[in-house]
């Protein structure tokens, strides 16, 4: 079943409009927890990273981690949000085995970040501005292992107290595609800002979706359901698509949507109600008496602002407007900061002309920018992918690649040869110059060497020369081929062509070069 059949675009929904808001939990990449000095590293043996506070031993107290606060502010500044001068840690009270204190320390009435917006580029190239209502700090819960034992669940508190930034969008998304584009944009941004590693498999980036539908044109929100913890972009899209379909079916049958929490079942592509959540929760939020108000000064905000670099959407725009890159290339390059930074370094690392007198900018800045983009998204991406390496661990650095591309741009080597050189560089055989020289891969564009070879060919095939001069133009390719063969394929093709034409033409006048 194709997704478009299940969930037509908004216009085609006809009488219904979907309204979606996302609650994203981004794990802040601090070394220690939000309120204890325990480590946050993923994958430790059970309960080895749970401090006394994390198992809520009596008498333990929370002491907050400044880095978590600063990362939240960083995010707030990146979405142009308001950073609260004073915000409050509140307790959200409920009982669950993975919640050691019987409450979660979160933020409720006064979050640290509110009223931001994020430009989101959709697949069709449209850009929408998504309003982000709030982003607040909270601690994660532990992990319940329901299959650990027969008739019992096991609890691991390593994750308890890990800092999260909960990012809450306004209900302004109207399709699964928009929701996922927004989710990806936030994913890009938090990694770009260096506040979250974005690892979905390890649970450092999670998403709950609130979905409702209403008659098209209505401004009243329908009853919503919440889809919990879907752990891939594809599943988020599918779960929302399914849920919109389901709600429309319910409403068209004249029934009512029940406000509830649902889980997405990827295996059967459906959502189902979460058991044990049938009663409405009463979380009894109140200001945490162990934690006085969070106060952020203007000077602190400015100090964090000063460390912000160009944001992904700004850089994407610059790549399109200043460098003339196609939208799709710019978007791909800006999908993560390491790639964009690599690209930036590559563009800037263009070496000076290798040959005296050669044009320093034969192809122009925009051509160089496009050449760089093609290589980052093409050859480099393929090599990284094959080696399963992140771009940070690339075997060909930006300056090294720039050295190669410069030789391609100035005609020293052909595109085909450049790929061969790149492979050798990837294999660690040295820089582009060394490999080109060692393997004798430079194209011959020196007129003297070319002329000598041409003369030899013309001398070898006098009858073909005569035929050509009688008007058999097709023979030009024969001479090109023969000369290339003599030069082991390294002749600069345009130069060779030009010289051949010149010589074949000049022979009539009995003059050699």
């Amino acid at each position, binding site marked *: 079943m194709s997704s478009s059949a299940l969930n037509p675009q908004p216009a085609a929904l006809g009488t219904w409009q979907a309204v979606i808001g996302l609650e994203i939990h981004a794990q802040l990449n*601090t*070394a*220690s927890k939000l309120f*204890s*000095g*325990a*480590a946050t590293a993923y994958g430790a*043996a*059970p*309960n*080895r*990273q*749970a*401090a*006394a506070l994390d*198992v809520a*031993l009596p008498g333990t107290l929370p*002491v*907050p*981690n*400044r*880095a*978590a*606060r600063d990362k939240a502010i960083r995010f707030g500044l990146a979405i142009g949000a308001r950073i609260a001068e004073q915000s*409050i*840690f509140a307790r959200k009270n409920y*009982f669950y*085995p993975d919640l050691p204190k019987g409450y979660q320390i979160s933020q409720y009435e006064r979050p640290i970040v509110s009223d931001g917006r994020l430009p989101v580029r959709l697949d069709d190239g449209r850009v929408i501005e998504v309003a982000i209502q709030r982003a607040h700090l909270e601690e994660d819960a532990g992990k*319940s*292992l*329901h299959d*650990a*034992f027969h*008739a*019992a*669940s*096991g*609890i*691991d*508190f390593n994750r308890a107290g890990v800092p999260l930034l909960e990012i809450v969008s306004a209900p302004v998304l109207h399709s699964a595609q928009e929701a996922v584009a927004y989710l990806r944009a936030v994913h890009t941004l938090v990694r770009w800002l260096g506040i979250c590693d974005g690892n979905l498999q390890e649970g450092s980036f999670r998403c709950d979706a609130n979905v409702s539908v209403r008659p098209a044109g209505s401004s009243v929100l329908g009853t919503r359901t919440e889809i919990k913890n879907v752990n891939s972009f594809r599943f988020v899209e599918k779960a929302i698509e399914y849920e919109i379909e389901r709600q429309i079916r319910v409403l068209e049958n004249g029934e009512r949507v029940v406000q509830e929490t649902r*889980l997405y079942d990827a295996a059967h592509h459906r959502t189902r109600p*979460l*058991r*044990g959540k049938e009663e409405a929760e*009463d979380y*009894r939020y*109140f*200001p945490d*008496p162990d*934690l*006085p*108000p*969070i*106060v952020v000064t203007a000077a602190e905000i400015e100090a964090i602002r000063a460390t912000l670099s160009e944001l992904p959407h700004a850089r994407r725009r610059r790549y399109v407007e200043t460098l003339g890159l196609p939208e799709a290339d710019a978007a791909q390059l800006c999908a993560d900061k390491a790639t964009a930074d690599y690209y930036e370094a590559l563009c800037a690392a263009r070496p000076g002309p290798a040959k005296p007198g050669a044009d320093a900018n034969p192809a122009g800045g925009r051509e160089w920018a496009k050449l760089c983009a093609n290589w980052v998204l093409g050859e480099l991406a393929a090599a990284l992918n094959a080696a399963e390496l992140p771009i940070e661990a690339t075997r060909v650095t930006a300056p090294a690649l720039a050295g190669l591309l410069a030789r391609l741009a100035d005609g020293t080597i052909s595109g085909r040869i450049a790929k061969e050189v790149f492979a050798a560089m990837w294999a660690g055989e040295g820089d582009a110059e060394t490999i080109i020289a060692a393997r004798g891969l430079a194209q011959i564009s020196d007129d003297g060497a070319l002329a000598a070879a041409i003369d030899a060919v013309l001398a070898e095939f006098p009858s073909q020369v005569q035929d050509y001069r009688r008007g058999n133009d097709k023979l030009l390719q024969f001479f090109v081929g023969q000369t290339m063969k003599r030069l082991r394929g390294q002749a600069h093709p345009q130069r060779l062509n030009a010289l051949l034409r010149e010589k074949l033409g000049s022979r009539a006048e009995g003059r050699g070069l």
Partner: protein
Amino acid sequence: MSIDHATVRRIARLARIAVAEAELPALADELGRVLALADALAAASDAHAVEPMAHPHAQALRWRDDVVSETDHADEWLALAPEARADLYVVPKVIE
């Protein structure tokens, strides 16, 4: 201030404290009388004008540096548990 039995049941459920049916009347009466104390708060007409006070001093939160300062005490903590197996705390099966 009177508290009905349904309210006592709801509150006891929120607080996860078992209350036997037989205890309900006495408990409802006690809670009603204690909560009636708070009726006096409603009479404080000047309370509207002030901000709620959650902490005794106008104190700003102080922060610690992001340093891993805890070492592994899992064995000590787990030894306190009524039931632990394979380094996990054990509870009756939770079904989601």
